[in-house]
């Protein structure tokens, strides 16, 4: 038997996996052929990658080992409860990639097993790299974690939709509330990591959009153990011009939690710590959220996190599309999810739907303090001719995405 010549990127893949990949590329594969009374299987892959937290962080709330995965697992159960009335069965195929692991190989593995939907719960760089793989061309990747606006802009892709909100959406959600409260003078404190700079950029964009003013900016560069020095360092660090609120950009949580109650002036802390824009919070109970909270708690034995909720939503996007179209055909499901007819409920009031210009899921954003939900954006009075949800993040005329259709929703 002669060894088949394989194209470069596939050479390492086993023959069986290759066959499966080729199969996955043909329309209708991944969904078992449907007889009149047989059950149609819909496979959903979950590729998770959790970056290693920096050693300096003192983290009082160690994330659970199944953070994210538990949300996807519950959503599969929810999909199957509905599915049993429609003869549809949902299977989660979960792969955990180590921080320095080969995400591309993991995606090939998932595609090889017939997963046409792959939820990517990973940093932005991984999401972007995966979306460009030839093996991903026929898949629908659901970004359930990375907030990077570039993924929705210059790096957007037709096979990539974003379940997690972008940094611009989070910043706008916070900014609308601060402007509504008439707290328009912001003191922006940015951490030393690249993602902190991106968060700060989003805050600057928000200030410009909603007429707020960044009156002062500082960068937190301290290398010392902030836990021990905060009480002396932060009052000095926060001496600046008169401002209404401090906005901190510290995504990994290196120092942001130490700002509250230690600023020179008595001012609230918001941003990545303090009052935080987020998709989910353990105290959120409106719009039937109490039901999802208790269902999750019963299954996972802990409260639902934002990461769990994003993964839950991603799996539900596929489930909702399958119920609405009554099909398990991945091509039809992918087309429906990206069509203006797709809407779903996610316990935050307004229905979620997809922005065709960048593949972003429109959604309300909660503003949460430690033990309460303070408000939900968009705020009243921020108007939009299509839906108020489009006041959050990049609207159609501003999008930097060129490869997606420009069709009006």
């Amino acid at each position: 038997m002669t060894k088949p010549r394989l194209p470069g990127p596939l050479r390492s893949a086993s023959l069986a996996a290759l066959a499966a990949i080729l199969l996955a590329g043909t329309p209708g594969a991944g969904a078992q052929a449907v007889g009149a009374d047989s059950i149609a299987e819909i496979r959903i892959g979950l590729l998770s990658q959790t970056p290693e937290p920096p050693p300096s962080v003192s983290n009082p709330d160690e994330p659970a080992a199944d953070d994210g995965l538990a949300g996807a697992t519950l959503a599969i159960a929810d999909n199957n409860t509905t599915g049993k009335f429609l003869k549809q069965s949902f299977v989660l195929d979960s792969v955990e990639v180590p921080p320095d692991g080969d995400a591309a190989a993991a995606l090939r593995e998932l595609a090889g097993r017939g997963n046409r939907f792959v939820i990517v719960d990973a940093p932005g760089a991984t999401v972007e790299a995966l979306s460009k793989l030839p093996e991903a061309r026929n898949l629908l990747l659901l970004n359930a974690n990375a907030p990077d606006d570039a993924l929705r802009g210059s790096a957007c892709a037709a096979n990539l939709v974003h379940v997690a909100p972008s940094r611009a959406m989070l910043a706008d959600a916070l900014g609308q509330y601060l402007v509504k409260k008439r707290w328009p003078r912001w003191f922006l404190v940015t951490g030393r990591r690249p993602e902190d700079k991106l968060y700060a950029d989003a805050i600057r964009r928000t200030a410009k959009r909603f007429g707020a003013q960044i009156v002062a900016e500082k960068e937190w560069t301290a290398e010392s153990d902030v836990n021990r020095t905060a009480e002396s360092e932060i009052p000095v660090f926060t001496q600046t011009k008169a401002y209404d609120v401090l906005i901190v950009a510290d995504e990994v949580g290196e120092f942001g939690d130490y700002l509250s109650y230690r600023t020179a002036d008595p001012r609230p802390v918001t941003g990545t710590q303090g009052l935080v824009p987020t998709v989910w919070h353990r105290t959120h109970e409106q719009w039937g959220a109490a039901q999802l909270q208790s269902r999750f708690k019963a299954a996972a034995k802990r409260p639902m996190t934002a990461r769990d909720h994003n993964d839950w939503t991603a799996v539900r996007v596929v489930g909702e599309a399958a119920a609405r179209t009554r099909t398990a055909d991945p091509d039809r499901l992918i087309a429906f999810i990206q069509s203006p007819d797709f809407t779903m409920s996610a316990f935050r009031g307004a229905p979620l739907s997809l922005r065709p210009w960048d593949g972003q899921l429109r959604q309300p954003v909660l503003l949460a303090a430690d033990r309460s939900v303070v408000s939900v954006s968009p705020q009243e009075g921020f108007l939009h001719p299509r839906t108020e949800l489009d006041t959050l993040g990049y609207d159609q005329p501003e999008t930097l995405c060129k490869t997606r259709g420009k069709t009006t929703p």
Partner: protein
Amino acid sequence: MTAVRFTGISLAALIAATLASAAAAQTIYVSNEKDNTLSVIDGKTMSVTDTIKVGKRPRGITLSKDGTQLFICASDDHAVQVLDLASKKVVHNLPSGEDPEQFALSPDGKSLIIANEDSNIVTVVDVPTRKVAFQVDVGVEPEGMDVSPDGRWGVNTSETTSMVHWIDMEKRQVVDNTLVGPRPRYAQFTRDGSQLWVSSEIGGTVSVIDTASRKVTKVVDFHIKGIAKDRIQPVGVKLTDDGRYAFVALGPANHVAVVDAKTFEVKDYLLVGRRVWQLALTPDQKTLYTTNGVSGDVSIIDVDALKVTKTVKVGRYPWGVAVKG
């Protein structure tokens, strides 16, 4: 001419007097979800006359067939409480399954069918023996409940599954499912049982389903000037017995839609309190009561005039409403 006018006036006075005496006998019960109480409103004075302490997180409420008892879904007590209206005391609990939210009483008054929101189950309780008759599996987050006037069908809507589940009450199983708009909240049969009206909170629509075929035959859409489409979230539905109107509570849109039940056209939108949730008609069909969760009050609507006549402050998060005629 003068005589006729006089007659006209006295006739009006007579009608008013009759109305007043009819209203005098009416008592309105409102469950306050966040106060663990019921507010009692006198139909004549249109004011709160009493507040009764009940179980935790009371939501759906309904009167017993003979009108002497009120069934209350005490969701966080995982029980349906039975309140004796004369003594205003909870006399016993019915086994309800976990987290009961809404229920419906069969036309013979003997079966209470209950949505167990957290466990994707509908529980049917035999009221006289106070025992669970049977349970059936339904979709995710069962919510809206009704029983057809002939007692054949029990229906349940499941919010996350977005379906109506048709329970054959004799066979004791789900025999059909109808897909409706996202997050169906409430179901009501027409008086003749030929149609089932179902609201979809996130879909922003009401589906009219033909009972015989169990297919959606009409979808009613709502548009209110100056209110974004996604804030129009239909919840409670009430149909008048004469088949004239369907009233639809539109949640955070703070309006009740008046739908012509024959042409399915929306005739009017009545401004009520904030986050209007559930509705109840008086037995004489002349008055509609709405619970307004966020503003913590009840709006009173004159059905003939299609006007809101009064707003009555009740407890925190009024949810269910029932009228004793």
